[in-house]
């Protein structure tokens, strides 16, 4: 089946930030430094009414999502809806949309996982509608199964609702005919006011619709659906309302198989585009490639001509959704990073107001006249936050991603490149504002490693250490994305070779700077970064005094062999890392596990019991062989940690331990 779980998660188009891992906020007064940097965001979504008079804000409070309305003139805030109080089931708000100036639609979701390899994960959805004029006692709902297809913001009191089955239809519904949620209907009452009738049909198709693609006026331009005869099909509506197939995946797969058979060519991982949103031109869509290891790239694809163009790539873990402007212009993406959903803006949207270096600033939502905006801003020393702006002027703060941090931090950033064996290697050096004394330095290689990169924007881990008086070096070594195809491509099969050389050369270069104490350098990383930390620490004790390896790979052959891979994924691994069947000894030679006797410096090994990407078996193996060889190490296995810092509590616990370990080895300039 082509459609993946991720695809079902992509429906929430206007979300700014959404936290899967929420936790109670901590008191400002008692907050430790780690709590300040790794606590939950206070606002996770915000939407502006069409007139610009009200903001519907989604906040996190005591593990629970809460909706409040903010008056944009008086800036008074009224809490109106709490998920925790409303539903006992494990629910979360996935979408918050103004239908008109009075009603807000809330898509409530409950995630139900299906049996692996047998059926897809199920996502139960409920559409609630809150009346902003009398919100406390007036929550309406659509009781019929389906989802909000379009808010029809130009028409008061109505919206488009999608209902899928053997035949799928789009209905135009009126809010005032809906009943209050949870209220038992009378004998004469009809469910949802009896609105699911032919006269309310906007479009219908013979097949199970998965996604409707709507123009700004609410008319359907295309639909992705399962046809009984043809399988998964993308089709476009012609002017007379007839469906014209743009893409038939089953048919194309058959053709592709036949072509390969005829040519006797080897199977390779091909791109498989899933259209996410209209691109403003006929037959053109912004798409994700679900054959990508993890969806990190946005493609503009014309399904009529077959023309495709990669227009964006993220450094975060995964793209969840694509954001477009009114005219179908690409604006940015909603991404998953460390368990939290963030919005990233395309380059041309990043610098709308470049007041400080490396600033992201863009409008999340705007009133119909465009005069009132919700603006998101972030820079290397400025934690992400939301503001209300009118006529281009910032009016008031709305919410923060890091509620316990000040608006601007006392740090500076150097962006530079070093040519390593013919290739420009970009790097970022973050420093405390005060560099009057020589600084101990942390080298922080990113995970991935292929197709990921460190951005010049706010990085909570880097800034957490800068706030403790460390310089923090992040190297976009070969294999990293975000700069050039050459840089990324040259990372193939370089896990233990040129990637490490890049990190080492840049470290040596940077330690020549006057601000840096070259005798106090530690290396810290997660995932591949954990691998790089262990391997570089082993090979270069003259450079690195200590290491911290989180969720690291220490036995590369085991990392590859540990799980079953699809053919496409296996091809990717063999091409980018190596094939244990042929390269076992080479991969063993660059695995820290098999060179523990050479380690001279202390290492802190951290792994999560719930890590499903790199198994905790890696940490146990490494610790066992370090122990056998009487090497200095500490092992911390966290019962809750996944392949990220995990929940805010877990992150705070973890980073406090890391700080302590580093402090005991190279100290810091601050208490």
């Amino acid at each position, binding site marked *: 089946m082509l459609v993946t779980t991720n695809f079902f998660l992509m429906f929430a188009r206007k979300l700014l930030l959404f936290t899967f891992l929420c936790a109670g906020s901590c008191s400002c007064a008692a907050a430790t430094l780690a709590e300040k940097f790794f606590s939950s965001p206070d606002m996770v979504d915000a939407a502006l009414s069409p007139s610009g008079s009200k903001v519907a804000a989604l906040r996190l409070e005591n593990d629970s999502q809460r909706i409040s309305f903010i008056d944009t003139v008086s800036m008074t805030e009224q809490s109106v809806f709490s998920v925790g109080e409303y539903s006992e089931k494990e629910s979360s708000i996935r979408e918050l949309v103004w239908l008109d100036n009075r009603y807000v639609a809330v898509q409530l979701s409950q995630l139900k996982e299906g*049996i*692996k390899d047998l059926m897809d994960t199920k996502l139960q959805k409920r559409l609630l509608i809150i009346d902003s004029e009398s919100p406390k006692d007036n929550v309406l709902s659509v009781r019929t199964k389906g989802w909000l297809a379009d808010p029809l913001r130009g028409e008061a009191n109505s919206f488009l609702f999608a209902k899928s089955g053997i035949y799928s239809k789009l209905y135009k519904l009126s809010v005032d005919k809906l009943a209050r949620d949870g209220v038992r209907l009378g004998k004469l009452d009809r469910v949802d006011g009896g609105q699911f009738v032919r006269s309310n049909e906007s479009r219908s198709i013979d097949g199970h619709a998965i996604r409707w693609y709507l123009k700004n006026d609410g008319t359907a331009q295309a639909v992705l659906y399962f046809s009984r005869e043809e399988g998964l099909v993308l089709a476009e509506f012609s002017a007379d309302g007839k469906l014209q197939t743009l893409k038939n995946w089953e048919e194309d797969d058959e053709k592709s198989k036949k072509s390969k058979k005829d040519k006797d060519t080897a199977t390779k991982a091909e791109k498989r585009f899933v259209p996410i949103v209209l691109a403003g031109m006929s037959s053109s869509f912004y798409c994700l490639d679900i054959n990508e290891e993890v969806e990190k790239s946005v493609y503009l694809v014309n399904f009529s001509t077959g023309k495709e163009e990669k227009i964006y790539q993220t450094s975060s873990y995964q793209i969840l959704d694509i954001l477009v402007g009114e005219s179908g212009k690409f604006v940015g993406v909603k991404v998953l990073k460390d368990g939290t959903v963030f919005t990233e803006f395309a380059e041309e949207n990043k610098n709308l107001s470049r007041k400080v270096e490396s600033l992201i600033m863009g409008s999340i939502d705007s009133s119909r006249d465009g005069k009132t905006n919700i603006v998101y801003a972030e820079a290397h020393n400025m934690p992400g936050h939301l503001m209300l702006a009118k006529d281009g002027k910032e009016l008031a703060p709305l919410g923060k991603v890091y509620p316990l941090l000040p608006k601007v931090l006392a740090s500076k950033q150097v962006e530079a490149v070093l040519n390593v064996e013919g290739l420009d290697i970009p790097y970022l050096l973050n420093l405390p504002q005060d560099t009057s004394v020589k600084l101990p330095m942390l080298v922080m290689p990113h995970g991935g490693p292929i197709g990921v990169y460190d951005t010049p924007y706010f990085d909570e881990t880097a800034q957490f250490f800068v706030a403790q008086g460390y310089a923090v070096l992040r190297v976009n070594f070969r294999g990293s994305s975000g700069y050039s195809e050459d840089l990324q491509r040259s990372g193939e099969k370089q896990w233990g070779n040129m990637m490490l050389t890049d990190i080492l050369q840049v470290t040596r270069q940077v330690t020549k700077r006057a601000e840096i104490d070259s005798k106090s350098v530690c290396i810290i990383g997660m995932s591949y970064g954990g691998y790089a930390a262990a391997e570089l620490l082993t090979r270069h004790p003259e450079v690195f005094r200590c290491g911290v390896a989180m969720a690291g790979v220490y036995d590369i052959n*085991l990392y590859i062999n540990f799980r079953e891979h699809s053919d496409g994924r296996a091809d990717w691994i063999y091409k980018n890392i190596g094939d244990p069947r042929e390269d076992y000894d080479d991969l063993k030679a660059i695995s820290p596990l098999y060179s523990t006797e050479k380690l001279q410096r202390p290492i802190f090994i951290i792994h999560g019991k719930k890590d499903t990407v790199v198994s905790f078996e890696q940490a146990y*193996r490494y*610790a*066992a062989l370090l122990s*056998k060889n009487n090497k200095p190490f500490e092992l911390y296995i966290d019962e809750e940690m996944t392949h990220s810092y995990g929940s805010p509590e877990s992150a705070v616990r973890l980073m406090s331990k890391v700080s302590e370990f580093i402090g005991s080895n190279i100290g810091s300039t601050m208490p």
Partner: protein
Amino acid sequence: MNYSLFSKWLVLTLFLSQFSFAEESGLNVLGESQGYLLIELDVGGVAPSMKYAMRRSSRSLGEERTLALNTIDQRFYLIKLRKGVYQVTQVLAPLYDLPYRLGAEQSSYWQFKIEPGKINYFGRLHIKPERLTDYVEIRRLNYIAASYDDIQDYIKTNSIPYPLSLAFAYQDDYLRELLGSLDASYN
């Protein structure tokens, strides 16, 4: 059989009856061409089971055997098998109204090898059903390091005088590196 040998056999048999061995094992003494398969179980569900067969060639399998997992309430389970390469063909994990089964016949990931005179670690068989969410997770996990101390305890407690080895189809030098000899042994 003389009395001395018989009494040893009797004591050994009574001793071993306390532990969880496969039916065909009976004794902890291996024949010349036999080895133990050590399965670490982390299995839930109504009536999970695993089917396996000896791989005669890349295309043919021997007689299929079924290992019922719902009757085993221990973490470690030993089966005495003839040396050779085996294939897990199916893992069955019915979940009430869903007769879920994982077909593994074509997967080298689900192969295991039995070296004679050794305890061959299969890995942890993880079957995790979630009734509330209709979810079944089936994995074979190479936890030789994470479970090593517990495996050692089990082997020592049961006085099984054979060295430990890995039963995975892929090359894995860890145990050899840990134990420091080509013939990895538990003591």
